[in-house]
C-alpha cells in the first residue's frame, strides 16, 4: 500500500478524518485507520500536524535519462498566428532552460507558417523546429500527434510544455500516451531541479482547495500543460539569434481518417475568455436576462469581455462560451468584475487567480468576497450604472 499511518506519531486527533475527500479514514482507540477505499489521492497528508501520515512510492530502479536534453515549447498557432500562451511558455522555458543548462527550443507545426520561426526566436527560442506540411494546416489530432511524437523520439527533449488550450488539452494526452510518459495538466507553477533535471509541476486539485506538486521522475520527456496568462513572455527582441531547423516530413505517414468538414467562428464576437485581460461577469444576482446588457456595457467601457456564472448559462441567459468555472472556462485576467455572482467553489476555481477581483453582491456573506480584492455589498443593478457614469467622466 502506498500510504501508512505511523502509529508512534499518531495521537488520534482526528484532523485527518474530515480531510479525506472520500471519507475513508476512521479513528479507533486513538489511532487513525485508512480504509480499503483509499484512492491514494494524498489530501490527508498535510492535514496531519504530527507527521503521522506517510506516502511511500515504489519508484523502481532509476532509469538513465541523461540522453534527454532540452526544454521544448509547443508553438501553438491558429490560422497562422502564434497563440499568446506559446510565447508565455517560452518566457518560463527560458528560466527552466537556464537552471537545467539545456537548450530552449520551440516546435512549430502547420502549413505555410515558416515565417513564424523568427517571432519565436525573438521571444527567446534558441532553436525552432518547423514542420510545414499541407496536412498540418488545421489542427487534427492524428497528424499533430504523429509529427510531435516523431520529433520527440528523434530529438529526445527532457521537457515538453504546451498551452492548456483546446488544442493543447487534446494533443498533449495523446502524445503522452503514445510516448508512454507522464503529463501534468494546468500547471500554475513550474520549477527545475538542476541535479536530477526533474521538472517540479505544481497545480490545483479538488477544485482548487488543494495544491499538488508532481514529478515525472523516471520517464522522459516530462510533459506539462499550462493555462494562458500564468507566465509572462520575454520582451520581444528582434536581435536575438536562433536556429531554424526544417523538419523532414518525407517519410512521415499521415493518417487521413479524420476529416475537417467545417470551421465556424463564434456567433457573437469572438469570446476567448482564456486570453482576455479584462472580464466582467454576470451572475444570477442580476435578476433577469435583460439586465445582462449592463454587464456588457461595463465590459465595453473597460475594454473587456463578458463572462458568466454557470447559473446564468444554465438559465439560458447567455451562451456556454461565456461560462467561467470548473465546468466552463478557467480564466486569469488582469481584472475580473463579478456582478451578482455568489461565488460557488466551482466558479471560484475558474477565476480566483485573476490579478484583481472586484465583487458586487447584495449578500455580505457571499463567498465571492473571500477571493475579492475589492468588495461592494450592494445591488449590481444600482452600482454598475454609477460605475459607467464614473468611467465616462474620465474620458
Amino acid at each position, binding site marked *: 500500500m502506498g500510504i501508512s499511518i505511523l502509529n508512534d506519531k499518531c495521537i488520534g486527533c482526528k484532523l485527518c478524518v474530515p480531510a479525506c475527500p472520500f471519507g475513508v479514514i476512521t479513528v479507533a482507540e486513538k489511532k487513525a485507520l485508512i480504509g480499503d477505499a483509499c484512492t491514494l489521492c494524498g489530501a490527508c497528508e498535510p492535514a496531519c500536524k504530527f507527521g503521522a501520515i506517510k506516502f511511500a512510492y515504489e519508484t523502481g530502479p532509476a532509469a538513465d535519462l541523461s540522453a534527454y536534453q532540452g526544454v521544448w515549447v509547443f508553438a501553438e498557432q491558429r490560422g497562422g498566428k502564434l497563440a499568446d500562451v506559446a510565447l508565455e511558455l517560452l518566457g518560463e522555458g527560458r528560466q527552466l532552460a537556464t537552471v537545467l543548462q539545456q537548450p530552449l527550443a520551440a516546435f512549430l507545426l502547420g502549413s505555410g507558417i515558416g515565417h513564424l520561426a523568427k517571432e519565436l526566436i525573438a521571444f527567446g527560442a534558441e532553436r525552432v523546429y518547423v514542420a510545414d506540411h499541407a496536412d498540418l494546416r488545421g*489542427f487534427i489530432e492524428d497528424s499533430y500527434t504523429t509529427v510531435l511524437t516523431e520529433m520527440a523520439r528523434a530529438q529526445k527533449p527532457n521537457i515538453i510544455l504546451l498551452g492548456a488550450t483546446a488544442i493543447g488539452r487534446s494533443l498533449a494526452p*495523446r502524445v503522452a500516451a503514445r510516448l508512454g510518459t*507522464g503529463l501534468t495538466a494546468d500547471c500554475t507553477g513550474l520549477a527545475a531541479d538542476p541535479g536530477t533535471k526533474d521538472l517540479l509541476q505544481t497545480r490545483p486539485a*479538488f477544485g482548487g*482547495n488543494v495544491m499538488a506538486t508532481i514529478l515525472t521522475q523516471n520517464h522522459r520527456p516530462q510533459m506539462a500543460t499550462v493555462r494562458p496568462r500564468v507566465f509572462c513572455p520575454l520582451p520581444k527582441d528582434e536581435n536575438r539569434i536562433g536556429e531554424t531547423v526544417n523538419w523532414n516530413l518525407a517519410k512521415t505517414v499521415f493518417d487521413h481518417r479524420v476529416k475537417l468538414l467545417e470551421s465556424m467562428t463564434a456567433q457573437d464576437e469572438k469570446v*476567448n475568455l482564456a486570453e482576455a485581460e479584462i472580464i466582467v461577469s454576470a451572475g444570477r444576482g442580476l435578476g433577469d436576462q435583460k439586465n445582462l446588457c449592463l454587464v456588457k456595457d461595463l465590459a465595453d467601457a473597460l475594454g473587456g469581455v463578458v463572462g458568466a456564472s454557470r447559473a446564468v448559462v444554465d438559465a439560458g441567459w447567455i451562451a456556454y462560451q461565456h461560462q467561467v468555472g470548473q*465546468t466552463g472556462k478557467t480564466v486569469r485576467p488582469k481584472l475580473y468584475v463579478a456582478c451578482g455572482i455568489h461565488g460557488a467553489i466551482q466558479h471560484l476555481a475558474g477565476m480566483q487567480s485573476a490579478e484583481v477581483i472586484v465583487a458586487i453582491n447584495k449578500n455580505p456573506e457571499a463567498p465571492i468576497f473571500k477571493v475579492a480584492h475589492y468588495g*461592494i455589498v450592494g445591488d449590481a443593478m444600482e452600482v454598475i450604472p454609477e460605475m459607467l457614469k464614473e468611467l465616462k467622466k*474620465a474620458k
Partner: protein
Amino acid sequence: MKIVVCIKQVPGTTEVKINPETNTLIREGIPNEINVLDLYAIEEALRLKERLGESTVVALSMGPPQAAESLRQTIALGADEAILLSDRAFAGADTLATAYTLAEAIKKIGDVSLILCGKQAVDGDTAQVGPEVAENLGWPHLTYVRKINEIGGQEVIAERMTDDGYERLSLPLPALLTVIKEINEPRLPGIKGQMRAKKAEIPIWTAESLNADPDRIGQKGSPTWVKKIFYPESTVTAEIIAGSPSEQAACVVERLKGLGMA
C-alpha cells in the same frame, strides 16, 4: 451499436472546504457522486441508443468498491450494463495507468463502436484520460464535443469547441468523444430505472480478469506521482467599499484607475 460510457465517482467538491482554524480540508455532506460531466456523456449515449435502436449502453468505471454505487446510478438512468474495475493493484493510478486499465477493459468488452466520456473529472481536472484511452486503443478522438450530428455504421460526425469557435469533423468508427455540457440536458432517473438499478448485478473485474500488465497499472504504471500536497495560502482580504451606490462606484473606479485598469 455498443456504446461504452466511462464514468468516475468523485468527492462532492461543493462540500470540500478548508477549515480556517485547523487549516485542513473538510469534507461535509455527501462524500461521493458521479462526476457531473459524465452525466452528460451518459445522457448522450442514451439519446443515441434511442435514435439508433438496437444498441446497448455499457457504463464502465475504475475505482474503489463504493464506485459501484455510481454505476448503479447509470443503470437507473437507462444504461443496459455497468462494469466496475476494482483492484488494490489499480490504486494510485495516474491518468496514463487509468487509461491503460480502461482500454484493456474496453478490449475485453469487445465490439465497441463508440466511447463517450465527460470532458474532465472535477477532482483531478486533467481531461487527459479520454484522449489517452483513445490512444491506447489506436482510435481517433475528439474533445470538447458539443454535438453529435450524425452517426452510422462506419462514421460519426461531431462538432467540437475550439478556442475560436467550433469545428465539425468526421471520424471513422470506432471512436472516442469527450463531451461538454452544451451537448444536452441530462435526464433524471425514473421509478422503473431505480428499481432496475436496485436489482442490477454489477460485475467487478480485477487486474487478473483483464490480464493486465502489472507494470502498467496502479502506482507502478504511473509515470507521474505526487511529491507534495499543500493548501494554497489564502492571501486575499477584500477591501469592502461602503457607501451609497454612487460612492461605491466612485471609489472602485478610482481604485481601478490607480491600477491602470480604467
